[in-house]
């Protein structure tokens, strides 16, 4: 639901008092850093592995072990900060956040609470509005900070035996926590922001950002208020496993809070879990009141310094050993927004199409490939790629890399249609045939099914006369002329 529809929705059933209530949404994103080893230890980072096999003595919090910071994780955080227009703190500090939970054997998490590695950034995102969802609206949300912290292990709850099984493979994996300012107003904005963030992280290679695999975890802080008045009590919504669920959870929670206030109730400051089956949020029992984390500086880690350029690295320090911001800026790849602008400017396609091309893995390359091979205009090609190709891929749940039709084959088909050898409607038919029989060439299929467009005037006249003669009472002679002039295919029967 867009912001407008939300306001519209509440105007109908509720009294005038609540006409102007709006939702306020702030996101906390935990992105798992894509690195070979963990943040403070040398054990492997991998999604699936036998339980507790990727655990070092430090990860298991055995006494006498010490944290050693992974340079790749620092670089990932700096790259992400640069891509999101953050100020990179030349000096950042590590702290301990204390709380007890079985999947965190140390009893504390090493994080960066006082001085994180990057602050004051901005995420620019777009979403579609309008009845046909084709008007692009660009928005932005401020990023308060990006900090490095440790991930905890995994708990598997066994209600039958009344126990929890703990797997520490994930304990100690590096995370980037991105804290956004509460500037969004509904589920759709949050979903659009997260999608853009996913694309950026994937382009940088700092995080694979797959929500289903837990590489990107999003918690939403939701409250409602009337604009101009102080912010309302907020609740934290957790357990969101996809971008779609994120939008649903936020919208449900905003709605719930509005209803609570409307019936003169009070919104509790609590943590709620999203239940995907019902689409509702339910209170989480395990959180005991307000937590006091007793933050303290991490005594085993001196401050982390990152340097502006090679020149600012102090004497006696090996530049290859430290993190240099200039070096990383030079490595920044083309970000999604830049890609989209380039596509629109180079090929003259619509903005909404550029979104589809960049969102779908491999589609942009496919499209550019076809454009280079074919003689047709990019604007014609985009139609084929967005409608025919994506249509088929989506209905069969396939990725672009799994398409049975290669860019070359599609280019060939488009060439035939453009040159008038087959009509556009026939071309679509041929496309479907090619999909089913990828080993056959375009020419073969057209020949087999005799789909060549008949341009020979005499031949057309013959066909028309035959049809007219078999239906003498129905035909208008002028139609015949029109028929001959038009270059529609007659499928001979």
């Amino acid at each position, binding site marked *: 639901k867009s912001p407008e529809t939300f306001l519209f929705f509440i105007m109908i059933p509720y009294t005038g008092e609540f006409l102007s209530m709006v939702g306020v949404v702030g996101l906390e994103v935990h992105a798992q850093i894509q*690195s*070979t*080893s963990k943040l403070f*230890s*040398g*054990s*492997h980072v991998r999604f699936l592995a*036998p*339980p*507790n*096999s*990727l*655990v*070092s*003595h*430090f990860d*298991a919090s*055995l006494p006498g072990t010490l944290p*050693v*910071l*992974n*340079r*790749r*994780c*620092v670089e990932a955080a700096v790259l992400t900060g640069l891509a999101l227009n953050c100020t990179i703190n030349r000096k950042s*500090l590590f702290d301990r956040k*204390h709380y*007890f*939970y*079985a999947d965190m054997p140390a009893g504390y998490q090493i994080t960066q609470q006082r001085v994180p590695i990057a602050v004051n950034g901005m995420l620019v995102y777009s979403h579609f509005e309008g009845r046909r969802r084709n008007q692009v609206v660009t928005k932005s949300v401020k990023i308060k900070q990006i900090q490095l912290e440790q991930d905890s292990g995994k*708990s*598997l*709850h*066994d*209600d039958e035996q*009344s*126990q*929890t*099984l*703990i*797997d*520490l493979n994930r304990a100690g994996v590096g995370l980037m926590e991105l804290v956004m300012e509460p500037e969004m107003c509904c589920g759709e904005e949050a979903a659009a922001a997260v999608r853009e963030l996913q694309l950026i992280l994937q382009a940088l290679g700092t995080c694979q950002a797959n929500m289903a695999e837990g590489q990107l975890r999003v918690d939403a802080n939701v409250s409602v208020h009337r604009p101009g008045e102080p912010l309302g009590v907020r609740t934290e919504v957790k357990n969101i496993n996809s971008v779609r669920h994120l939008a649903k959870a936020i919208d449900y929670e905003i709605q719930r809070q509005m209803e609570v206030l409307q019936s003169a109730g009070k919104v509790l400051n609590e943590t709620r879990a999203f239940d995907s089956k019902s689409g509702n949020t339910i209170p989480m*029992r*395990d959180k*005991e009141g307000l937590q*006091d984390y*007793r933050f303290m*500086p991490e*005594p085993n*880690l*001196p*401050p*982390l*310094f990152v340097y502006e350029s090679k020149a600012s690295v102090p004497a006696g*320090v090996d530049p290859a*050993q*430290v*993190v240099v911001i200039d070096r990383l800026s030079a490595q920044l790849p083309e970000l999604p927004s830049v890609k989209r602008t380039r596509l629109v400017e180079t090929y003259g396609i619509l903005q909404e199409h550029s979104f589809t091309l960049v969102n779908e893995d491999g589609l942009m390359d496919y499209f550019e490939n076809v454009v280079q091979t074919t003689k047709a205009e990019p604007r014609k090609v985009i139609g084929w790629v967005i409608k025919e190709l994506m249509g088929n891929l989506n209905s069969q749940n396939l990725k672009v890399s799994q398409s049975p039709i290669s860019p070359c084959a599609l280019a060939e088909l488009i060439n035939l249609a453009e040159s008038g050898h087959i009509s556009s409607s026939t071309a679509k038919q041929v496309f479907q045939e090619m999909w089913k029989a990828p080993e056959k060439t375009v020419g073969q299929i057209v020949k087999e099914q005799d789909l060549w467009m008949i341009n020979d005037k005499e031949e057309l006249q013959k066909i028309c006369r035959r049809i007219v003669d078999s239906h003498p009472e129905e035909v208008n002679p002028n139609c015949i002329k029109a028929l001959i002039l038009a270059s529609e295919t007659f499928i001979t029967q």
Partner: protein
Amino acid sequence: FARASRALRPTHPRCGVLTLPALSDIGSASGTSWSRWTYKRESSNSAWNSKVPQIPTWEPVAENQLPPPTRVSPDLVDKLERLALVDFGSKEGVDCLEKAIRFADQLHDINTDGVEPMDSVLEDRELYLRDDMITEGECAEDLLQLAKHTVEEYFVAPPGNIPLPKREERSSMLKHSEF
């Protein structure tokens, strides 16, 4: 005897550690062995130059210069016990805590205007950054052996956090325990 001392563990000239003769070399347990020992200490002065003052140099801070004493309420004790899982045990425990806070209050006497807070003496050192390589792990067996109860290579924990029982319940629980 000098020969015996040379056979001892070699000292680094900058090291302030006193080399001790092996007990057997001191000979019979007579008073003379110790005087020989202190004689050795004074003669090798460059190797032994203690920074620890021989007599105390500090004076306790006057009570009127300290901030008002902090009283730890039973509610605060309860909260601390819950957060840190530390058992204060009794009135003595709380008294000990209050005395410790009083002792630390002396720090308020120091003028720290214009001085940046320091949280680590290693502040001027480069934080060592490790290469992103796999160097450890694959020791599930060793780690699981440390736990009394495991299930199929998983550690076992109770379902969720068990809240610390209230003070009254705790004392009745502890009455029957070994402590």
